[in-house]
């Protein structure tokens, strides 16, 4: 049961081979046994999960089951869930019990999904290794001395370890795709504006997007059908006709043009990563695709641009944490300014403070034009590179991450080294494009490699089609970490 995809679990539930209560109980007992090893869950609430599972079983018995009804889904602890502690991986919100549900959570609840628990993450989504969490690092199920990636590391590890069939995550600079790559699972960041950010704790508002993480492209499509949609409460939510993200899955790929940016294959990526990605491209050629070389000349500027824009937006979004209305409050303070300073200094971790300082600096008087405005201009150049490339191809492919899972502590001392892990993913957020990572092999250490598929705006169904066809011809996405028994 714990190795099954959503599609197969939904069939099992519909055929009454098992109930949602049984499935949920089974996963919760696995989580109790394995969470101490991986630390992927911050909060569990067995009773709340069981109640949702019971309600889902009643819906199915009444003939009102939908694809996600009764399916347990882990939720990155950045999504507000009413009545659940929602910490964002931070001391600042370690006591925050949300009074409302995020849009995505509302949608999952309405579909009859079961909240399996809140997953660990880099603090306020700032990180690429899940080492900055106040609740301790997450360990990669493929090798517990390595990181699962971040910031959605807990969600990725939970799905990889078969503790949850699916999870929701968020991606601002790669935080769904990079952990999906390092943990050997599938993750999708939708086009900016497709998934409502209402109730998703804000990091960088022009970049943040929520998205699904699961073990197959088909499962991602089923999740997207629940998660996507207009929401008036998010001012950047796009009004579009509803679409079925699974509608193209079975189309043959003959004639699909794949763009391979030369900058993605230049030095920088580990040889084991390049080898697995090149094999994947060869497999797509076997499926009838044509590969063309394209160029994204401004790609390497994406890291400095991001590290101006994201901290700037974060410094503004995190100004709300002041100990007054919710969350952590310093126990002692001399006056109001001291309350703010102490609450924030005690409540935030080092990486968050570092980014707030960078953001405040680049927005401050005298520096705004040189940094923030300049970054927004270079952002347009980066988006323009993709527009040019998409004139000659339908989808762009390359490695998701330059390396496979690195060791805990290896990059934590040097922020710039950590930032460079996002070199292939960041430009996609800057341009607002959709990006997907799927497993495509292993390196010489047996660690998973992720293939990134980037589409033009609103091309998610086409991207999932390519991934699904690849997954019919290969089995990388079915592999489980050593020691995880699959029945």
């Amino acid at each position, binding site marked *: 049961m714990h190795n099954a995809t959503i599609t197969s679990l939904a069939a099992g539930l519909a055929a009454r081979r098992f109930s949602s209560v049984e499935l949920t109980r089974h996963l919760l007992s696995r989580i109790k046994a394995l969470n101490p090893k991986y630390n992927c869950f911050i909060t569990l609430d067995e009773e709340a999960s069981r109640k949702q599972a019971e309600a889902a079983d009643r819906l199915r018995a009444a003939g009102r089951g939908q694809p996600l009804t009764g399916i347990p889904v882990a939720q990155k602890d950045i999504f507000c869930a009413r009545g659940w502690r929602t910490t964002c991986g931070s001391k600042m919100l370690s006591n925050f019990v949300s*009074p409302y549900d995020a849009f995505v959570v509302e949608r999952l609840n309405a579909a009859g999904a079961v909240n399996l628990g809140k997953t660990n993450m880099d603090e306020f989504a700032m990180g690429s290794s899940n080492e900055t969490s106040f609740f301790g690092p997450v360990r990669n199920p493929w090798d517990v001395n390595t990181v699962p990636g971040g910031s959605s590391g807990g969600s990725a590890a939970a799905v990889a370890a078969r503790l949850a069939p699916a999870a929701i995550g968020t991606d601002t600079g790669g935080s769904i795709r990079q952990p999906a790559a390092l943990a050997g699972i599938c993750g999708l960041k939708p086009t900016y504006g497709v998934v409502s950010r209402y109730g998703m704790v804000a990091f960088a508002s022009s970049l943040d997007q929520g998205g699904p993480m699961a073990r197959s492209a088909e499962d991602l499509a089923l999740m997207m059908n629940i998660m996507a949609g207009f929401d008036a409460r998010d001012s950047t939510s796009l009004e579009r006709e509803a679409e079925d993200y699974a509608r193209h899955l079975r189309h043959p790929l003959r004639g699909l043009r794949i763009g391979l940016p030369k900058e993605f294959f230049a030095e920088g990526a580990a040889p084991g990563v390049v080898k697995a990605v090149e094999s994947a491209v060869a497999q797509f050629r076997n499926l009838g695709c044509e590969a063309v070389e394209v160029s994204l000349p401004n790609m390497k500027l994406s890291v400095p641009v991001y590290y101006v824009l994201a901290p700037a937006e974060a410094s503004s979004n995190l100004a709300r944490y002041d100990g007054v*209305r919710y969350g952590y409050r310093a126990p002692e303070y001399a*006056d109001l300014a001291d309350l703010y300073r102490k609450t924030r200094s005690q409540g935030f971790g080092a990486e968050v403070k570092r980014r707030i300082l960078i953001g405040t600096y680049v927005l401050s008087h005298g520096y705004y034009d040189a940094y923030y405005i300049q970054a927004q201009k270079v952002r347009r150049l980066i988006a323009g590179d993709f527009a040019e490339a998409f004139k000659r191809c339908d989808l762009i492919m390359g490695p998701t991450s330059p390396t496979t899972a690195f060791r805990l502590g290896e990059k934590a001392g040097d922020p710039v080294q950590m930032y460079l892990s996002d070199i292939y993913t960041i430009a996609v957020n800057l341009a607002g494009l959709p990006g997907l990572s799927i497993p495509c092999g292993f390196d010489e250490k047996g660690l998973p490699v992720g293939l990134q598929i980037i589409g033009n705006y609103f091309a998610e169904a086409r991207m999932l089609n390519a991934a699904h066809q690849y997954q019919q011809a290969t089995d990388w996405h079915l592999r489980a970490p050593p020691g995880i028994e699959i029945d």
Partner: protein
Amino acid sequence: MALSLDDVTRVAELARLAIDEPEARAALAQLTGVFQLIAQMQAVDTRGVEPMSHALDVVQRLREDKVTEGDQHTLFQAIAPHVEADLYLVPKVIE
């Protein structure tokens, strides 16, 4: 643009972050590294390029000027650290 210790303490004050001298020095060293990375971006010739804040050509959506939210202060104040008589309590500001 090299950062100085004064820059760090000034910015920390703007961001309402308390930072003592050893922390400020450590922050300065790390921020200097980050700003060296950022310098690559500053060197780019962007004359004639419009800043981009949003990928797609959309405008801010407006809605009717009608009250749609109800009073939920009891729910929201239930999780506040210090509340009395429906007011959030903070140290006195006026002398």
